[in-house]
């Protein structure tokens, strides 16, 4: 096996947005490409609408399943507030792909806490890296007729930066989804790939 550069990905969002499936698919793609992988998710009580995070580590040899702070190569945030909750994990000049979508926490609805403005979100992320991509994932997934395709759309976005073949992504997606959803999700994946070309902030 030739030497393989390490790739650490952090997927964040709100419980129910499909983070775990997305991180499973990345793991399968990396396995097929001959990498070592460790990945870890939030399960149980915490997932009920709470802040969730998945760590995916890919390299020639991986020991710890949790990524160290400041070493994330790719931050994939399914929700804006959750992107900055984990911003300190992003390494300098790492890539952040943020779904331009807000799910205000209950405390915000009740007027106890504030949701950050877009400017604040960008300010926090830009302290870490200039490579910020704000994508309209929820909008595109809704346009496709199924908001649940957001996770596959996000995979499409990050796939542009990763050294894996398109066919491997397609195979992993079909492995994890029922056949009736294949076509829709392939479209979502392609849509993510296209989106990333136009949205560098």
């Amino acid at each position, binding site marked *: 096996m030739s030497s393989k550069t390490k790739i650490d990905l952090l997927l964040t969002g*709100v*419980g*129910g947005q499909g983070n775990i499936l997305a991180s*499973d698919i990345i*793991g*399968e793609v990396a*396995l097929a490409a001959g990498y*070592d*992988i*460790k*990945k*870890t*998710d*939030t*399960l*149980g*009580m*915490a*997932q*009920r*609408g*709470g*802040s969730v995070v998945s760590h995916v580590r890919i390299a020639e040899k*991986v*020991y*710890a*399943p*949790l990524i*160290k*702070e*400041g070493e994330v190569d790719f931050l994939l945030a399914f929700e804006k*507030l*959750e992107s*900055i*909750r984990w*911003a*300190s994990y992003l390494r300098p000049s790492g890539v952040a792909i943020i779904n331009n979508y*807000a*799910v*205000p*926490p*209950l*405390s*915000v*609805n*009740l*007027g*106890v*806490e*504030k*949701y*950050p403005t877009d400017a*604040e979100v960008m*300010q*926090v992320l830009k*302290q*870490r890296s200039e490579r910020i991509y704000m994508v309209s994932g929820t909008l595109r997934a*809704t346009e496709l007729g199924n*908001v649940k395709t957001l996770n596959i759309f996000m995979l499409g976005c990050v796939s542009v930066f990763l050294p894996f073949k398109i066919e491997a992504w397609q195979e992993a997606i079909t492995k994890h989804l029922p056949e009736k959803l294949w076509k829709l999700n392939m479209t979502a994946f392609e849509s993510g790939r296209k989106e990333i070309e136009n949205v560098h902030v």
Partner: protein
Amino acid sequence: MKKLLSGNEALALGAYHAGVKFATAYPGTPSTEIMEAIARYKDIYAEWSTNEKVAVEVAMGACYAGARALVSMKQVGLNVAADPFLAVATTGVNAGLVLISADDPGIHSSQGEQDNRHYAELAKVPILEPTDSQTAYDLMAYAFEISEQFDTPVMLRTTTRISHSKSIVEVKETRTESTRKIAFAPNMQKYVMLPINARIRHPLMEERMVKLAAYGETFTFNKIEMGERQLGIIATGISYQYAREVFPKASFLKLGMTYPLPEKLIREFASKVDRILVVEELDPFIEEHIKVMGIKVEGKQYIPRTGELNSDIIESAGRKMGLIKAAAAQEKPPVGIELAKRPPLLCPGCPHTGFFYVLAGMGQRLKLPGAKDRTIKESNMVIAGDIGCYTLGAYPPLNAMDTNGCMGSSIGTAIGMEKAGLSAKIVAVIGDSTFLHSGITPLVDAVYNQSKITVVILDNSTTAMTGHQEHPGTGVSAQGETVGKVVLEDVVRGVGVKNVTVVDSFKIKEIRTALKTAMDLRELSVVIVRGACVVQVPKHGEIRVVNTEKCNQCGICLLIGCSAIQTTGKKPIIDIGMCTGCTVCEQICPKGAIGPVSRTKTEAQN
């Protein structure tokens, strides 16, 4: 063949390939997926047991009868099952018995943090600890062999991070079929723990530990990995991985069996390195046992006793020990803004929401948005809660829970508060699965001791929090078959409760009437609030919308804590992607401003 498996999937597959014939469990994070995975094999018997105590007892019977048996539970499950666990540790086994204890360092989803290795020491049984999915898979075969060879149950201790991390596993394709026959040879001295027999068993248990310690000296998974001699690390479980990452050049003694410990091997390791650091999560279990041997090691003065470890924590310990140069601390940019917290919540459309809203209202706990004083004063009602999704009713805005300790404790706690003389109305709130797990015996206590509490059973017909497992009240088995169904109201009436009502969890007025009637009785009453979990029945009806002309921003709809109702602007809006059409908000809106999307459109056209 290489597979990407979670620790729990690897444990299940490892047990299956090791010839397990029998599996029992009660759901509990982070252990649940072990049973979910193993129940798929139709050539073994697998059951969700009523609780962990029953799970161990059933598995104990199976192993006595000659079937290799696996029982899995979360760490606090072993508190419930401690009695039979110590019993089978005393009798020993016939076919192998492996108990998986899934500990939860960091308290991701538990009521407390505890290191269950102490139970194995108490019971005098060996502990195996995997470091990743591969060792989880491999250790399972050894666990059954050790159990049979040494006539002991074996504890396999996993943790949340091992159980819920996926890594690559090289799996063998075949299942080892046990040659052991299903048969029971009566042996009173071994299986009937009268004092006279237990006195014979105890010395045998002590002997067994001596033999196991000798076995550990050459056990494949107790291994020295020599690197530089300046630093030697003794580690197990996930801690080994963090230490390996932070100290790539150090020497390691990696322990797969952490009790009893291999003293000679540890002495050999100690003689080869200058300084030893023990890295383990939670209690200094290995560390203290090694110190008793008179070997100098360091550990908990640098490694925290609480919470989950990670590479950052180990690195900082390395700095404190002077092993890692205090490199220019990495610039951590200030976030600069206070981030809104996002704790877990009841889902939109949750059948518990309406009930908690009514209860919180009756107990004067609801505070409108903008209310200055948000503290809850001494209430006319005390709500003893229990364990499940509904524990989330404790959060604002519902504030509808005052106590929560352990499975089934709501009813007993409520009885105690009443008998101690509290004048407030006392309500116990418990879920269906939790009630069947350990709510029945305290309810019997309430009948017997003439308690006047009101018990509410929130029946969503599933074990929701752990991911929707079946239980005795659903009438479906772990393996998907239609089986006996325990009807809650029959149980309640059967133990002698006279005042029993069943209401629909989505009908606010009915719930209010039932609760008021029950509490005004001032004698023991049970109200069963029944409605399907929204994750299983995701759409109730048409999506609801707010008519902005009728809405006067009173804020009452926000008090149910539904995350589908949002107020980014001034007036509340309902997120169409999240609304399930449960109508709870519509039923409580004093202005009639919330309705189905179709009617509101018609009104708009008129």
